[in-house]
């Protein structure tokens, strides 16, 4: 992050010695700072504290040291949700990156009519809430009455248990996430691609470079920082995933598509073991924190965080 210096051209606005002008920025910042304090900073420390306690709505909080964390590693359901989240994140992120990059490559060549229309069309799924996305796909993939199984059966095949077989359900959740978010990352890739100077491509063509070669030698290296930002943003988003499975699979069948956030919510609010659930949240936060830091590092290089 580039720091603004006093001598910076852009800051002529002097505030020294003028009470009104020193107070004004503080007042402009006040609502934001207040909200951050009340609803992020204080809860953050509260959450850290709770992770080391037995805490329920109806019980007296009690300090238990590292007991919650020790229990996490013996908690089979939690370990399953961690495994599910990692499997889901890995495949969703890889597919999302590849699909959205391919879409962007096809739609940023400025040599075809209708590029803008296609961009809008591919972006539309990103507008929907994950709740609605889950409902739509559950309607489509339903065992008995979904359109996909209907078509399969009418072609002489048999229905597939898309959402009632564990592995298939996980695969569907991954593919639906890709369907829902690739348009968003596509836009980021398109802007990254447009930042690459045209002269480079012209020079490559004159030198007789094949499109395949040009992609690996010019496009991808220059797009490196955008690729990293997309990878990291998609990873953070997938570790936070929850809404989609609420309506699409409810985490099932069994625990097949249950993710960390759903488990945290259930243990905290339905089983009233808030201290233990806080320990789970800390694990999740550490994972997200690491990826966010990575994002800052690479995005910062790209100047996107200036």
């Amino acid at each position, binding site marked *: 992050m580039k720091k603004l210096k006093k001598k910076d051209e852009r800051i002529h606005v002097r505030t020294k010695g003028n009470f009104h002008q020193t107070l004004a920025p503080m007042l402009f910042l006040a609502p934001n700072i207040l909200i951050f304090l009340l609803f992020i900073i204080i809860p953050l420390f509260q959450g850290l504290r709770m992770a080391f306690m037995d805490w329920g709505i109806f019980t007296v909080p009690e300090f238990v040291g590292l007991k919650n964390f020790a229990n996490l590693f013996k908690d089979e359901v939690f370990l399953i949700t961690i495994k599910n989240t990692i499997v889901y994140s890995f495949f969703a992120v890889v597919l999302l990156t590849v699909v959205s990059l391919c879409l962007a490559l096809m739609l940023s060549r400025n040599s075809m009519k209708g590029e803008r229309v296609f961009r809008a069309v591919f972006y539309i799924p990103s507008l929907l809430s994950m709740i609605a996305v889950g*409902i739509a796909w559950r309607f489509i993939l339903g065992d008995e009455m979904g359109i996909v199984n209907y078509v399969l059966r009418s072609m002489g095949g048999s229905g597939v248990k898309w959402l009632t077989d564990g592995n298939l359900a996980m695969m569907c959740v991954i593919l639906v996430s890709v369907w829902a978010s690739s348009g968003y990352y596509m836009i980021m890739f398109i802007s990254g691609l447009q930042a690459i100077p045209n002269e480079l491509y012209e020079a490559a063509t004159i030198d007789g470079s094949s499109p395949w070669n040009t992609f690996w030698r010019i496009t991808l290296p220059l797009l490196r920082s955008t690729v990293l930002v997309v990878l990291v943003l998609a990873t953070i988003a997938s570790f936070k995933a929850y809404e989609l499975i609420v309506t699409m699979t409810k985490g099932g069948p069994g625990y097949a598509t249950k993710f960390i956030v759903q488990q945290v919510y259930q243990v905290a609010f339905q089983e009233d073991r808030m201290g233990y659930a806080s320990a789970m949240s800390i694990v999740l936060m550490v994972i997200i924190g690491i990826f966010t830091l990575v994002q800052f590092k690479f995005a910062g290089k790209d100047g996107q965080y200036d």
Partner: protein
Amino acid sequence: MTKSRKATNRVFLVILIVLAIVSLFPVIWVALSSFKPQNELFSSPMTFFPKTWTLGNYISAISQGNFARYFMNTVFVACVSTVLTVLINIMAGYALAKYYFRGRNLIFGLMIATLMVPLQVIMIPIFLQLKNLGMLNSLWGIIIPPAATPTGIFLARQYMVNLSNSMIESARIDGAKELRIFVRIILPLSQPIIATITIFSFMWRWNDYLWPLIVITDNDKMTMQQALANFVGQLQINWSNLLAMTTISIIPVLIVFFAFQKFFMSGITAGSVKG
């Protein structure tokens, strides 16, 4: 060269059309199915378009239960929250872009660092905090806390850093008060970024599920996404009604998207941040 380009275009066009169908089919299928009468929905043979068009699902979805209430709650939350979000984030962005004071880079850095603490990881202490403040089961509990977004501040500040200072300075020499400068000069100049933040904020709040889930348990205060999720949670899903409700819930964001398309694209590009 042009020949091969034409051939590539043709191949790409076919791929893109196939993908466009995959991209749009679920939305169109849900919307069309919502106009089918209940006995037609799962009957064989299935048709793409309804054999008989009906508004019956919409009428029963709206008249049954609390749906109109959920819709109005969501409209209220999305609109009020958006006004608040735009106002306070533009103010903060202005303070961080155009004033020089000690600690301003630190404050900006800390605000951006809160991206590392999404709601998903602090939902338990947030719940307790809202309980302490008496904001549980109140729509304000889903309006105020998410209003200060790091993404909004970031977008606002980046935009305003590049505004010229000369107008601010001459207004100051003329004796204008700081608030007046903000309202009369900064706000009009910031219209593009205000539009971007407005659109994204509206969409985030409209599609929000986790905040209402934590804050609202009272049936009268629920939002549409919550209602949809609860509807799916029932043992017997009334698909006809559910599809009508889902379609209604999608329409507002689609309208916003088609009306303000160019701001969507610039917002994603400038921000590269999701909030």
